[in-house]
């Protein structure tokens, strides 16, 4: 765990592109908030491995969002049921219901639908927000942090040694 956090910090403070971190976090959000054994999560896994994103961030984000999902299940159920039973969308759902692929995806389950729609809607704003946040962090905060006493003390800590020792795979 310590190593994973160190890797994230290293990536955050490295020269790697902000999108690599934010995309990892956003993809982990979809995989974590929706039921893990869903068909779409295979695609998420493929994207996570194929795109040059930070895998440590993806793994940490996955653990974080899986925990969040448990708390948010009632909300997902409500969103899913509202969408699935909305009359204007019945034709669309009926078409999908008659497709084997979508049946395997279990789109007609209230929690699957609710969590997927919720995470997809959040995907783009979160991605842009994180990108901007990382950029600002590097420009303004990082330099200042390096000069603080806490940071100086931190450089002597165990976590910092772990941070130093990790390789840059995934950057």
């Amino acid at each position, binding site marked *: 765990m310590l190593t994973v956090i160190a890797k994230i910090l290293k990536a955050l403070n490295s020269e790697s592109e902000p999108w690599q971190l934010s995309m990892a976090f956003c993809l982990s959000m979809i995989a974590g908030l929706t039921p893990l054994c869903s068909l779409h999560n295979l695609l998420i896994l493929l994207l996570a491995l194929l*795109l040059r994103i930070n895998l440590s961030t993806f793994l940490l984000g996955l653990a974080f969002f899986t925990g969040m999902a448990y708390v948010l299940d009632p909300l997902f159920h409500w969103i899913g049921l509202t969408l699935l039973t909305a009359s204007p969308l019945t034709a669309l759902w009926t078409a999908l219901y008659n497709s084997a692929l979508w049946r395997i995806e279990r789109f007609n389950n209230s929690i699957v639908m609710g969590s997927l729609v919720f995470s997809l809607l959040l995907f783009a704003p979160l991605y842009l927000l994180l990108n901007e946040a990382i950029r600002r962090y590097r420009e303004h905060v990082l330099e200042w942090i390096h000069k603080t006493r806490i940071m100086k003390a931190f450089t002597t800590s165990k976590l910092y040694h772990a941070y130093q020792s990790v390789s840059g795979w995934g950057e």
Partner: protein
Amino acid sequence: MKKLIRWHGLTVFLTIATFLAILWFFFVDGLIERTIEKTGSRIVGARVDLDAADLSFFPAGLTLAGLQVTDPDKPMTNAVDIERIVLSLDPLNLLHRKVIIEEMSLEGVRFGAVRKASGAIARRPAADRNVMKGPAHKKPELKLPVFQAPDVREILEKEELQSLKLIESLSIDILTERKNWRKRLEDLPGEAKFDQYNRRLEKLGSSKKDSLATILGGAGEFKSVVEDISRDLDTIRKTRKEFDDAWLSLTKRVDQARKAPLEDARRLKAKYGFSARGVEKMSQILFGPKVSETVHKAIAWYERLRPFLERAGEARGGEKGKGRPEVVKPIGARSVDVRFKEHTPLPDFLISLANASLRLRAGDIKGKIENITPDQDILGIPTTFAFSGDNLKGLKSVELKGKLNHIDPSKSKDAANLQVRGYRVEGLALSENEELPIVLERALVDLKLRASLSGDAINANLLGDFHSVRISSPPGKNVSSIASSVSRLLSGINKLGLKIVVSGTLEDYDLRLSSDLDRVLKNAISKQVKEATDRLEGELETAIAEKVRGPLGEVNMSLRVVDDISAELSRRIQEGTALFDSAKGNASGGLKSLF
């Protein structure tokens, strides 16, 4: 592009996917096993165990071995054991998340086998708990009639006699009344007052009447005395009237107290005496508990298995089954599934044909169940079943046929017909009553059952024809003459007809049993019951009369004392009247002398 894509990631993905597929392949059997056990336990409300599950791909099928379903009411017994279940799956429909089983065979189905470990689970499903507490679970309240003559002394020691209570309270009331009336007598004008009037009259009579003034004065005095006597006399008469009312009330209560012992005797006879009522309903007493338990169990299992007959779905925006989305809650899930209209509608779960071999103690019975699905509204065909067996051990033939029609769940109609011929019953204990133990030693039974269920309304009719009957009723403890008669009669019966009617709703049904036994017994022992009851009533009357004799004597004595008050009041009225008449005479004589 190179900065964006990590091509070796594809290889990692394929490796992970292959690894997951291999993992699934190795663990899918265990997964199926656990899913069946978990879901089954949820439905039944007791442990469902499965020894092994084996999923095969070519051809697609599933084999389940050693399925045990615990009886929720008897956790150490299995409701059903199935040695092996083999079923063939339709793989293409599985992709549509539809479990379509063309054919299934159930081998070695047994009922009521003893379990090695308890199959109870900590929490039973809510639906099951409701079934158990419903009014249908009420046991028949009838008991075997009491044939043994009760001990009168014991009854009187145990029971509170109303007559005794009445007499005791009356005795206290009489004493109080007596005290009150004595006090009132003291306050009433009596001998002293009358003497006083006499002296006043004598004084007036001896006084000189020499002038008109003295004559007129004397007349006025006379008038005043007469008025005083008249007032006192009125007071005594009024008191007498009040006394008469009180006396009447007391004598009425005394009459009641005298009759109360008879009332007590009648009440106690009704409570402890013999009753032919129990004998009239002997078949209900003998067969009722077993039949009631069987009916209750059947209803409980029907409720448990109902989810396999009709899915509890809720149609959104209109009537169910009209092509509108339907919300369905999978068993044990936190979420719901919404079902939409399909181009080629198929049930989510369907067993087209299930061949079963039931292993009973009498031998094997074979049968088939067709179209098992919770989506009859989609399939449009009801579930049917048919089982039969011939020349079995202790059973000539058995045939069970039925149809469970839930195509329109709001108008569901289930029906079952059972015909049993030549079923040999041996050593069935019908009554374990100490005084009248009854054992059906031997009988050949023909049964015909027709049961139907429309919605929640149940209607079942069972006709049982018992022949070659041998009922034994070994002499019990302290057997009375009536019990002996019943025992003798039962031993002589060799043919018996039994009719059971169940009607009402699943929640609250009415169970009626009747048989030839009721009529035969009623006719035979009614006279004996009456004689024994009359005898008991006589004994109770004597014993109660003995017990109340003393207190009742005291009441009579007290009443006589109160009666003395009546005599005293009469005497005072008499004396007062005489004095009044005399005073009146003197008064008019005095005035006459003036003229």
